[in-house]
């Protein structure tokens, strides 16, 4: 394609440059009913899965229809979302913090046509473009990351694992049968971009082999002290290496017995790649939450040490997740989040109920804090 200039002049890059203008003000994009009633809402109700109504002290109502989205989407799909907003919502819409889409209308009779329109749209492959749901005590969208699509440090894929998991949990997206809402998150490496460390169920990409060292280029491409300081277990030290050519170069040495394959050193140094087809896979964590409701926020805990990457559907991972969800749905009391339930019945019961094998990998061994995760009591169920 021929080059089409936007008007930017590469010979004078600073000429006519606009900077530091920040994002657009959200007030510019409010539906009129939201703008009129801002700060005056009295109460809300979940009418049915995916449909909310908020009632204002002025008597006005706003109906919200929440639909799932793949997060990663094309310009074409965004245009289709805009068409729906133009047709039903005077051109207004919003995205939620879990990347669902919300269409808002100001009267009840506009809800049914909007819902019918959304539910009728499918991709040629058969999947729903805009499945309605994600409210109340169900499973809403999965917060996830880049995976093999764009990132250079992943141990698993994000979009693929998320599609496989949401397909398995789809009925819970469109239902509100669980004791409390269940948040599922995915991160493709231990950088944990997103919410895996604080989600009811978390999917995490994990390596099982130490990095390979490219001694020839390491000192050229890397700031060696940064790679050394990047290691949480101090497995890396500087070392002089003699190359095959006879040249002596500065490089590093990885103590394989201390390495736990976090990949931090590769983040800092391109000459330490560690991704591996058979070695890499998935860790499952459970029991985290961010809200302050009843119990304080919790970190999620590792419950499955490793599940192999089994593309494109990750069947073992999705089966384990659905076992966990079913055990929680039948065992927990109303309002109990996943972590509240596991802590009430005891983690030894959790592993029994979810039919998950407890392995030594799950026992914390990182620094002083590990001691506090062991059991300093005789209170234990057989």
């Amino acid at each position, binding site marked *: 394609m021929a080059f089409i200039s936007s008007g930017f002049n590469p010979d*004078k*890059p*600073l000429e006519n440059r606009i900077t530091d203008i920040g994002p657009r003000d959200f007030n510019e994009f409010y539906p009129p009913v939201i703008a009129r009633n801002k700060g005056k809402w009295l109460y809300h109700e979940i009418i049915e899965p995916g449909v909310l109504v908020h009632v204002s002290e002025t008597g006005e109502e706003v109906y919200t229809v929440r639909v799932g989205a793949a997060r990663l989407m094309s310009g074409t799909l965004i245009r289709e979302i805009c068409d729906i907003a133009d047709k039903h919502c005077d051109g207004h819409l919003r995205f939620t913090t879990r990347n669902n889409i919300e269409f808002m209308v100001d009267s009840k009779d506009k809800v049914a046509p909007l819902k019918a329109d959304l539910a009728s749209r499918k991709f040629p492959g058969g999947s729903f473009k805009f499945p309605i749901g994600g409210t109340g005590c169900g499973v809403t969208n999965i917060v996830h990351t880049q995976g093999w699509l764009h990132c250079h440090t992943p141990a698993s894929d994000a979009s693929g694992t998320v599609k496989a998991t949401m397909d398995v949990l789809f009925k819970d997206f469109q239902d509100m049968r669980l004791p409390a809402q269940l948040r599922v998150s995915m991160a493709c490496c231990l*950088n944990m971009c997103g919410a895996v460390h604080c989600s009811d169920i978390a999917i995490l990409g994990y390596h099982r082999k130490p990095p390979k060292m490219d001694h020839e*280029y390491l000192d*050229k*491409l*890397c*700031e*060696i*002290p*940064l790679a050394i300081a990047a290691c949480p277990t101090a497995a890396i030290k500087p070392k002089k290496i003699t190359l095959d050519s006879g040249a002596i170069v500065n490089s590093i040495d990885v103590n394989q017995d201390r390495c736990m394959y976090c990949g931090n050193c590769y*983040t*800092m*140094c*391109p000459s330490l790649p560690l991704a591996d087809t058979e070695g890499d896979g998935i860790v499952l964590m459970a029991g985290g939450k961010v809200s302050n409701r009843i119990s304080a926020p919790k970190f999620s805990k590792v419950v499955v040490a490793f599940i192999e990457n089994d593309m494109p559907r990750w069947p073992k991972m999705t089966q384990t997740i659905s076992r966990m969800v079913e055990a929680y749905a039948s065992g927990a009391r109303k309002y109990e989040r996943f972590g509240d339930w596991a802590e009430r019945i005891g983690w030894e019961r959790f592993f029994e109920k979810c039919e998950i094998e407890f392995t030594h990998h799950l026992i914390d061994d990182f620094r002083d804090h590990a001691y506090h995760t062991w059991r300093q009591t005789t209170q234990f169920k057989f």
Partner: protein
Amino acid sequence: MATNVDFQGKTFVVDEDGFLEDFNTYTAEWVDYCKKEEGIETLSDEHWQVINVLQDYYKKNGIAPMVRVLSKLTGFKLKHIYELFPSGPGKGACKMAGLPKPTGCV
């Protein structure tokens, strides 16, 4: 992807972002070559002061200085460093000084 750049009789091996692949291949011509794509018309003493500080720090410590350290050593505030190097201290100044490409979650 390493590519060769020929400039004023010298050859530089650079990566896809235009960073020198080896600090030891740095010569003064490299700065002249980078100038245009970094949006710098003429190099002042202040430019050279930043480049020299970066190189001295890298030779001595094996890492690029933190921004606060660079400010303190040169006496230039971050705003002034951006006025000198519009792409900033990492993409602009470190590249012209021949230092390795910044890494991490940038």
